C-alpha cells in the first residue's frame, strides 16, 4: 500500500517536472501579448512557426545525440555545407540537389559517430573536429563566398517558401520530421536503446544492447536533420554559404536543454525539444516585438536563457551538476 502511494507521488512529480516547459511557454506568450498587444494574431503565430522550423529541425537532431549522453557540435557546419551543396547543384540537377545535400549530412553524421565510437574520442572533441573538417570542405566548395540561388534554381525551392492551407510549408515539414522523430524515439528498438545508453551505458552494455551501433545511428540522425535544416535555410534565404548556420549551433542546444532534456542523457525527447525551440524563438521574436534595443537583445536573451534553464531543468536525475 505504502509502496504504491510512493510510486504515485513519483509519477505526479515527474509529470509536474515535464509540464514546466509548456507552462513557461504559455507564460512567455502571455507576457509578450500583454506588453505588446497584437502578438497573439494568426499571422504572427504563423511567422513564429515558420521561423522556429529550422531551429527545431536542428535541435531535434541534436536531441538524439544528447539523449545518448553525447553532444554534437558539428551541426552548424553540416547545415552550412548542405546549403552550399544545394545552392551549387540546384541549377544543374534541379530537385535532385536536395537528396544529395541531405546524403552529405548523413555521411558526415556517420563520420562523427565513427570517430567517436571507434577511435574513442569524446563526442565533444570528435564533433568539434569533424565540424572543423566539414566547415573547411564547405569553404573550399564555395570558394569562401556565399552562393546566390538564381532565378532558375528558385523554381525548385519555391515550394518550401509557400504555404499549404495557410500554414507555412516549412512548419509542416518540421512537424512531419518532429512526428517521425517522436515515434522513432518512443516506439522503435533504436529509441529505447538510445534512452538506455544515455541513462546508464554500463547497464546498457550488460543488457546486450549494441551500444556502438546505437551511438552511430544517433549521430547519423543528427547529421541528416542538420543537413535538412541547412537546405531549408538555403531555400528560405535563396543563398548557400559556408557560414550560413553559424549562429544556430548554441541556440539549438539551448532549445534542447530548455525543453527539459537532461544534458547528461537518458531523459527527455523530441516533444520537449519542440517546446524548447518555441521558447527560444518566442524570446527572440518577442524582444523585437516589445522593442528592446537591438544591441541589448543578447543581454536579455542570455538572462532569459539562464532563468529558463534554472526553471525547467530536472535535477532529480542528475547526481552531480558539472
Amino acid at each position, binding site marked *: 500500500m505504502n509502496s504504491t502511494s510512493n510510486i504515485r507521488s513519483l509519477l505526479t512529480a515527474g509529470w509536474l517536472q515535464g509540464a514546466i516547459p509548456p507552462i513557461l511557454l504559455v507564460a512567455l506568450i502571455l507576457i509578450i501579448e500583454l506588453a505588446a498587444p497584437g502578438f497573439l494574431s494568426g499571422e504572427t503565430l504563423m511567422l513564429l512557426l515558420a521561423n522556429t522550423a529550422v531551429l527545431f529541425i536542428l535541435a531535434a537532431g541534436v536531441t538524439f545525440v544528447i539523449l545518448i549522453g553525447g553532444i554534437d557540435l558539428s551541426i552548424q557546419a553540416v547545415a552550412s555545407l548542405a546549403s552550399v551543396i544545394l545552392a551549387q547543384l540546384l541549377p544543374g540537377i534541379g530537385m535532385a540537389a536536395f537528396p544529395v545535400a541531405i546524403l552529405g549530412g548523413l555521411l558526415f553524421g556517420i563520420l562523427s559517430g565513427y570517430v567517436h565510437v571507434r577511435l*574513442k*574520442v569524446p563526442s565533444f572533441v570528435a564533433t568539434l573536429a569533424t565540424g572543423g573538417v566539414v566547415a573547411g570542405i564547405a569553404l573550399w566548395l564555395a570558394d569562401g563566398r556565399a552562393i546566390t540561388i538564381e532565378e532558375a534554381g528558385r523554381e525548385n525551392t519555391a515550394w518550401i517558401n509557400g504555404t499549404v492551407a495557410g500554414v507555412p510549408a516549412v512548419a509542416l515539414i518540421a512537424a512531419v520530421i518532429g512526428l517521425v522523430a517522436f515515434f522513432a524515439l518512443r516506439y522503435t528498438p533504436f529509441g529505447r536503446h538510445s534512452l538506455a545508453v544515455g541513462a546508464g551505458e554500463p547497464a546498457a552494455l550488460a543488457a546486450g544492447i549494441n551500444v556502438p551501433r546505437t551511438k552511430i545511428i544517433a549521430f547519423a540522425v543528427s547529421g541528416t536533420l542538420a543537413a535538412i535544416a541547412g537546405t531549408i535555410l538555403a531555400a528560405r534565404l535563396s543563398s548557400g554559404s559556408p557560414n550560413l548556420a553559424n549562429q544556430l549551433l548554441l541556440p539549438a542546444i539551448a532549445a534542447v*536543454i530548455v525543453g527539459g532534456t537532461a544534458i547528461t542523457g537518458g531523459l527527455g525527447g523530441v516533444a520537449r525539444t519542440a517546446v524548447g525551440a518555441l521558447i527560444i524563438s518566442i524570446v527572440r521574436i518577442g524582444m523585437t516585438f516589445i522593442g528592446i534595443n537591438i544591441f541589448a537583445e543578447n543581454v536579455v536573451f542570455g538572462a532569459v536563457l*539562464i532563468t529558463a*534553464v534554472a526553471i525547467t531543468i530536472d535535477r532529480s536525475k542528475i547526481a552531480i551538476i558539472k
Partner: protein
Amino acid sequence: MTADIDNLKSVRGAARPSLIGAARRLTSGRAAPLLVLIALCVLITIANPSFIEPRNLIRIANSSAVPLTLAMGLTFIILLGSIDLSVEGSLSIAAMVVVLLATNDANSNHFGWFAVVAAIAASTAMGFASGLVQTMLRIPSFMATLGVWFIGLGISVYMLGGSAVRLMDPSIRDLALARFLGLPLGVWVALGAFGLACTIQYYTRLGRHIVAVGGAEDLAELSGVNVRRVRILAFGLAGFFFGIAGVLAAAQLGRSDAVIADGRLFAAVTAVVVGGTALTGGEGGVINTLIGVLIVTVLGNGMILLGVSPYVQQTVQGLMIIAAVALSLDRQRLQIVK
C-alpha cells in the same frame, strides 16, 4: 588498483602488435602532445626551413599570446570537469572596458593603466557570475556560461554602440608594439600568466582542490573540500585570465568591436584538449595546455608557410585534433567515452 590497471595495460599492449599499436604505445601517456609538437616542428622545418628563423618564431610567440592566456583560464574549468563557454563574452567585456576607459576615439576618457585594472576586474566579475549562477541555481556550466556569453557579448556590443572604437593610449598599445629581449611585451605578459597558472595549479590549495573535484566530485566533498567555493573561485580565476587576454587582444588589434572575440572559444577549447587535458576533468593541466596552444599555433603558421589554401586549413586542423586525441587518450581510464 594501480597494479591492476598496469597489468591491464601491459596485457592490452602486448595483444596489439600492429603498427598502430606501436605508435599508440610510443605516444600514450603524458609525453604524447610534446612528441606531436616536436614532430610538427621537424616536419615543417624540413618542408620550409624559414620556419625556424627567429623572425618566424617571434611571430608564433606573438600569435600564441592571447590564446595561451585564454586557455590558461579555460584549463582550470575543464580540470573541474565543467566547460566555460563564456570565453568570448568575458574577453569582449574586458576589451570593451579597456578601450572605453583608456584614451580612445569615442569619448574623452584617459584613465591609462586604471582602465586595464578595471577591464580585468570586469571580466573577473563575469567569471564569478558564471560560478555563482552555476552553483547557486544548480544548472550545468554548459548552460550557465552559454547565458553569460550572450550577456557579456550583448553588454559590450551595446556599450560600443555596434561600432569599432580605436585604442589610442600609447602605453597600453606598447603591449603589442614595444619589445623586451626581442619579444613583444604581450608575450611576456602571457608567459607571466602561464607562470601564475602553474603556481596556482601546483602550489596552492585551490589548484589541488580543482583537480580533486574534477577527478571525483563526491569523494572530494566527502574529504571536506568545499566544492561550491572551489567552483566559484575557479570560474572567477578563469574570468581573470580572460580579462588579461581581452586587454592583450585590444592592444594587439588597437581597437575593440563586436567581433573581437569571434572564434576564440573553439580555438581555446581545441588547444586545451589537444594538450591532453581530459574533458571529463581531473587530468592534465596548464603545462599540457601550453603545449596544446603551441601545437595549434605552429600548425596554423606551418600551413601558411607551406602555402596550404586557407579554406583547407580548418579541415587539416580538425583532422589534427582527431589524430592528437585519438593517439594520446589513456584508454584504460576511459571505459566509457561520452
